[in-house]
């Protein structure tokens, strides 16, 4: 069944099809429709889940942590300041190895008070131990919500998927809603290895002394390093059953490219149109979409960019005092490539606080990347009027 729906409802449909058992969430623009739709589904019985109302995002994450620890499938969604308010609990969810899935509707951080999109909310959760997957279309949002549970539960790591505020959250487009029976076959009921159970008591979250803490982090790191291969296998299953897949990294018209645009989120989609036009004009320009930001797909990135002369990274985010965050991660990943095979990397900062990224903006990025032999600075700001 194909339906025209906004990204926020694609999130809700994904959670419903994944048969989540506990939801706890607090509304915030532009995520509110996720909460509204899920509570509507819970109220009318189409989603037989427990919806726990809370007074804050910190409590929402605490509630899904408790729920997930009992072995059920738990879900939440937030955005911007709401996500920041969850920060402490995000670390807890990951450290406790709970396979929670959440959707973050990417929205800028105030001040200046701003409800529009950029990635600073989710990227500032980089070191919490959550897998991060950046989506490009509403279809990808729905599919990824379901796949995220399979990934999370296979390795006991929490997964955050993100969608750009308004550009996906409030944009209506056709979305194939997969058949529930097929989804059930793809994602059976969660079987937790350890759970809070009154009949078989265990202690959780106890004091861990220096003799064991590092081993817990080591095991967490080991699990996260298995994510790329696990996601790949899950995506292949999804493709076999539903005919679609996305990849941690996607190269688009990248063969023989002299210049690759590196994108994430909805900018990818507009950039595809620009690449199509440039290719039609005979120019060797392609695109690399980074869907998975954590764990960072270092090996895949090295392979995709090895020997490409120039790469232009489009960052809708800023690490103040440094530069665009995807560009930073890419520089780090590419450092070990031998001289001559390492691309000249141009890091662009653009589209902050929802400033529109039109084809003209991307054309500007291409021209700037072609113009200089080397970037003049690590953070090249596009369209800013100082």
């Amino acid at each position, binding site marked *: 069944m194909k339906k*025209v729906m906004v990204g926020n409802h694609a999130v809700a449909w994904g959670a419903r099809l994944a048969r989540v058992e506990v939801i706890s969430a607090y509304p915030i623009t532009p995520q509110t429709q996720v909460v509204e739709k899920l509570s509507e589904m819970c109220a009318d019985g189409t989603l037989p889940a427990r919806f726990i109302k809370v007074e804050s995002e910190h409590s929402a994450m605490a509630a899904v942590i408790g729920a997930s620890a009992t072995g059920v499938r738990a879900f939440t969604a937030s955005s911007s300041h709401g996500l920041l308010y969850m920060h402490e609990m995000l670390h807890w969810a990951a450290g406790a190895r709970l396979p929670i899935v959440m959707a973050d509707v990417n929205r800028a951080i105030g001040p200046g008070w701003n409800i529009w999109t950029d990635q600073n909310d989710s990227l500032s959760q980089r070191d919490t131990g959550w897998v991060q997957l950046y989506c490009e279309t509403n279809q990808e949002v729905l599919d990824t919500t379901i796949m995220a549970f399979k990934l999370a539960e296979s390795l006991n790591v929490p997964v955050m998927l993100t969608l750009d505020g*308004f550009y996906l959250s409030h*944009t*209506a487009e*056709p979305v194939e809603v997969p058949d529930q029976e097929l989804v059930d076959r793809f994602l059976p009921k969660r079987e937790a290895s350890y759970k809070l159970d009154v009949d078989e008591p265990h202690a959780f979250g106890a004091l861990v002394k220096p003799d064991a803490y590092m081993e817990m982090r080591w095991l967490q790191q080991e699990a996260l390093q298995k994510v790329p291969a696990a996601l790949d296998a899950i995506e292949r299953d999804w493709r076999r059953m539903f005919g679609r897949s996305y990849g941690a990294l996607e190269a688009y018209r990248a063969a023989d490219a002299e210049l690759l645009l590196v994108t994430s989120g909805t900018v990818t*989609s507009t950039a595809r*149109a620009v690449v*199509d036009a440039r290719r039609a004009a005979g120019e060797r320009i392609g695109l690399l979409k980074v869907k998975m930001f954590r764990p960072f797909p270092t090996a895949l990135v090295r392979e995709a960019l090895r020997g490409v002369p120039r790469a232009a990274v489009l960052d809708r985010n800023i690490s103040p005092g440094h530069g665009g965050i995807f560009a930073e991660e890419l520089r780090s990943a590419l450092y070990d490539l031998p001289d001559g095979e390492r691309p000249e990397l141009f890091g662009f900062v653009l589209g902050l606080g929802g400033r*529109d990224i*039109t084809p003209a903006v991307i054309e500007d990025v291409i021209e700037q990347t072609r113009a200089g032999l080397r970037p003049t600075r690590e953070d090249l700001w596009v369209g800013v009027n100082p």
Partner: protein
Amino acid sequence: MRELRLHGRGGQGTVIASKLLAVALFLEGREVQSFPMFGVERRGSPVTAFLRVDDEPLKLRCEIEAPDELIVLDPTLIDATDITSGLKPGGRILINTEQAPEEFPQLLARAHVSTVDATGIAVRHGLGGKAQPIVNTAILGAYAADTGLITVESMVNAIREEVPVQIDANIAAATEAMGAIRHAAMRGMTAREVARA
């Protein structure tokens, strides 16, 4: 690709209208993308929404700067805002008004103009209050008739899918609007007008 921009005021159902059109066009087998101008809506303030339609999957994800068509839900916006900003020459404008298209010579100079009294139709069918009629289904019917892109069947099915209340009244309003549309072709500008523009 066809790009539309809708202008209305908060409370008129402008964003729902763009979604209704998207669903109806989707039911006709098109690829669609509809979205509001991203902002904070307030009752009575100008609201803008966008719609892209194509036979191929849509790639652009940015606001529409140069629309092919405009739909104006509140005619007072024509003088209050720069409504034709970016409109492609020879484009189309559909206006909710009692007036005839010929009464908009400044718009006819650069676009084809159609008019429909969607407000009157909405009021007659009891959609919204008299002070704040909900005109989106009447606009859908008018657009279907004006462009020939949407069959009656898809129009009715879109209303059934998207409008939660007064389904019969909404279908009746859309159907009445189909027959109430008036159209005038672009007359272009005289050389003198071009020089002055």
